[in-house]
C-alpha cells in the first residue's frame, strides 16, 4: 500500500471506528470482544484495502467481515473446546451500559441468532442480504431469525412467535 492509499485507509479507520465499535458491541454484547472484532476486521480490510476501495463499499465490507468472523469464531470454538455445554452464549458484559430486559435477553441468544437479528433490525438487511453476509442459505437466516425472536419472546414472557420479512 502506497502512502496515499494508506492515508485513505487511515482516514476510513478514524472516521468509522466508533460506528464499527458500536456494531461490534451489538454483535458480541461485550466491549472487549467488540474491540477485538473490529481490530481483526480492520486488519483484514487493510491488507486488501486497494481491492476493497476499487470494488466495494468499504464500510459494508468491514461489517460483513465482522459478522462473518463473529459467527465463524463461534464455529471454531465449538470445534476446539469439547465441553459438555458448547459455549453458545456470549459472556456477560460488565460495561456500564443500559441494561434493559431486551438487552439481557439478546445476551442469551446464540451468536448466529444474535448476528441475524442485528443484521435484520440494526442494519436493515433483507433475508437474502443476510444470507450473503453470513454465507448461508436464506432458509437458514429465516429459521435462525425465527428461533432468535422466539427465544426473546420466551425470555420476555411472550410466547407468540412471528417473523416479519
Amino acid at each position, binding site marked *: *500500500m*502506497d*502512502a*496515499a*492509499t*494508506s*492515508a*485513505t*485507509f*487511515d*482516514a*476510513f*479507520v*478514524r*472516521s*468509522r*471506528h*466508533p*460506528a464499527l*465499535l*458500536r*456494531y461490534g*458491541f*451489538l454483535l458480541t454484547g461485550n*466491549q472487549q470482544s*467488540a*474491540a477485538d472484532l*473490529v*481490530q*481483526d476486521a*480492520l*486488519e483484514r480490510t*487493510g*491488507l486488501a484495502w*486497494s481491492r476493497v*476501495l*476499487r470494488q466495494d*463499499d*468499504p*464500510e459494508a465490507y468491514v*461489517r460483513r467481515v465482522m459478522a462473518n468472523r463473529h459467527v465463524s469464531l463461534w464455529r471454531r470454538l465449538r470445534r476446539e473446546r469439547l465441553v459438555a455445554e458448547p459455549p453458545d452464549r456470549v459472556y456477560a458484559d460488565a*460495561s456500564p*451500559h*443500559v441494561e*434493559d430486559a*431486551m*438487552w439481557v435477553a*439478546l445476551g442469551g441468544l446464540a451468536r448466529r441468532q444474535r448476528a441475524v*437479528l*442485528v443484521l435484520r*433490525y*440494526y*442494519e436493515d438487511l433483507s433475508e437474502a442480504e443476510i444470507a450473503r453476509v453470513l454465507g448461508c442459505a436464506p432458509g437458514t437466516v429465516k429459521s435462525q431469525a425465527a428461533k432468535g*425472536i422466539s427465544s*426473546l*419472546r420466551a425470555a*420476555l414472557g*411472550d410466547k407468540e412467535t*412471528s417473523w*416479519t420479512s
Partner: protein
Amino acid sequence: MDELELELRRTLRDPARDVAPGSDPVAAVHAGMRRRARGRTAAGVGTVVLSLSAIVAALLLSGGPVSLPDEPAITPTLAPVVSPTVVASSSISPSPVVPSGVSGDGTSGAPVVPRAAVPIPPAGVDFAAVDVAFVGDWGWALGSASCNGVPCAAMRVTNDGGATWQPGLAPPAAVIPEGTVCPERHCVNRVRFAGIRDGYAFGGSQFTSSVGLTWQLTDSPSVHALEPGNGGVIRVVTSTEGCPPSCSFVAQRSEVGSSKWTDLKNPFLSGVRARLLRQGDDVYVIADQNRAGGVDAHAQIIVSHDNGASWQRRADPCTPIEPGDKGEFDATDAAVGADGTVVLLCTRRGDSGFRQHNVRVSTDAARTFGPGRILQSGAAGHIGVASAKSIVVSAGRGSTIQLLRSTDGGRNFTTVLTRERTGPVTDRLLGFSSAGSGSWIDGDGTSIWRTTDAGKTWTERLFN
C-alpha cells in the same frame, strides 16, 4: 413488525450503547497488519522450503541427478507494508470528511484524509464555493481554496443539513467559474450526488466519486451539465471543435455509478453553454446562444416528458411584457421545483435599467408559460423554485443584495433577506433540493444560506 420487533429495533439503536473509542485505532490496526504480513511472508517461505526439501528428497530417493532451480521463486504474498505517511500540506487543519452511509446508525460523518494515486489534496484555507449538492442532510460544496498560497480545488462536506461543514475530498482538477477558459488539464465547476455513494464533479472534465473516498477521472467528452434523478443520471456533453462558443450538445443517460453512457438522440442543439433541469420523467435542456447574435440568439430549449426517450422543441418564452416594448429578453437562469413548476428568469439584453427582468412560470411542464411579471429589482442573479407557491430570485440593489420571494406563482415578490454585497458578482448559486430545503451562496462564496421552509427564512453558515 410487531411490538417485540419494534422494541428490539429500539434497543439495538439506543444511543446508550455507543462504545467509547480507545486510543488511536489507526496505529493499532497498522501494527496488526504488519504482524499479519510478517506471518504470511514467513508462511510462504516455509512452504517453499518444505517444497524444495521434498523435491530434493524425491530426487535422492529416485537416484536421479540433483538439480535445483537457480533462483527459487519465493514470492512473498504481500508487498512490504509502507508506513503510513500523509504527504499533506501543513495548511490542513481539520481532516477531510467522507460519508459512509452504510450503517444506519446515524453516526455517519467524521474526520478523514484523502485519496490514492495522486498527491493528497490539502483542505486549503479561504474556501469559496462555486456549487453545492444536497442529498438529505448530506451536502457537498465544491470550491476553490488557497493551499500554501497556491489556488487549489477544495471540498466541504456537511452531514447535518448544512449547519456545519468540514473539509472533504476534492477531485484533482482546477475549479473555475462557469464560462471561464480552463487553465489546466482538467477543470470542474459543478458537483452532484446521486445518493451519498455516487458523486459527480464536472464542468469540462468529469470525475466520479466512490463513497466519497476517491475521485476518478472519467474518460468522456466535455461535460456541460449533469443531473441525477429518477434512478439514473443524465448529462449533456459536447465534443465539438471550437467549443465554446460553437458547441453542439448531446444528452446521454447512464445508470448511477456506471461508466457506460447511452446517447438519448436529442434534436440538434447548439450554443455556448447548456443547462439541464430534471424533475421526475421531465427533462429540460436549455442551450444559451451568443447574445451578440441579435434577435436569433434566443435560447434553444428541448423538452422530454419520458426521461429522454423522445424530445420536443420549445420556443424561448422570454419576451417583452409591456405593450410596445421592442426589447430582446433572454432566459438567463432557469429552475424546476419539486412539484414540476418550471421558472425562467428573463433578462433584457444589454439593459442595466431598473425594469430589466421578468419571471415566467409554467405549471404544465413547460408546455405553456404564464404571462410573466416585471421583477421590481436591480440586476437579478439567479432564480430558484421550491414549488409554484415559493419562487425566489436573488437581485442586487446598490451596495446590497436581496432575496425576493413570491408565494403567488411569480405575480408579486417581497424581500425576505437583505445583506451587504460581498463579491464582484451578485451571487453564485440559488436552488432548492426539495420543496422545503434550499441553498443560496452569495458573491464571495465563503458562506451558504440555508432555508428549510421553502425560502421564507434563511440562515447563514460559514464554510471555514
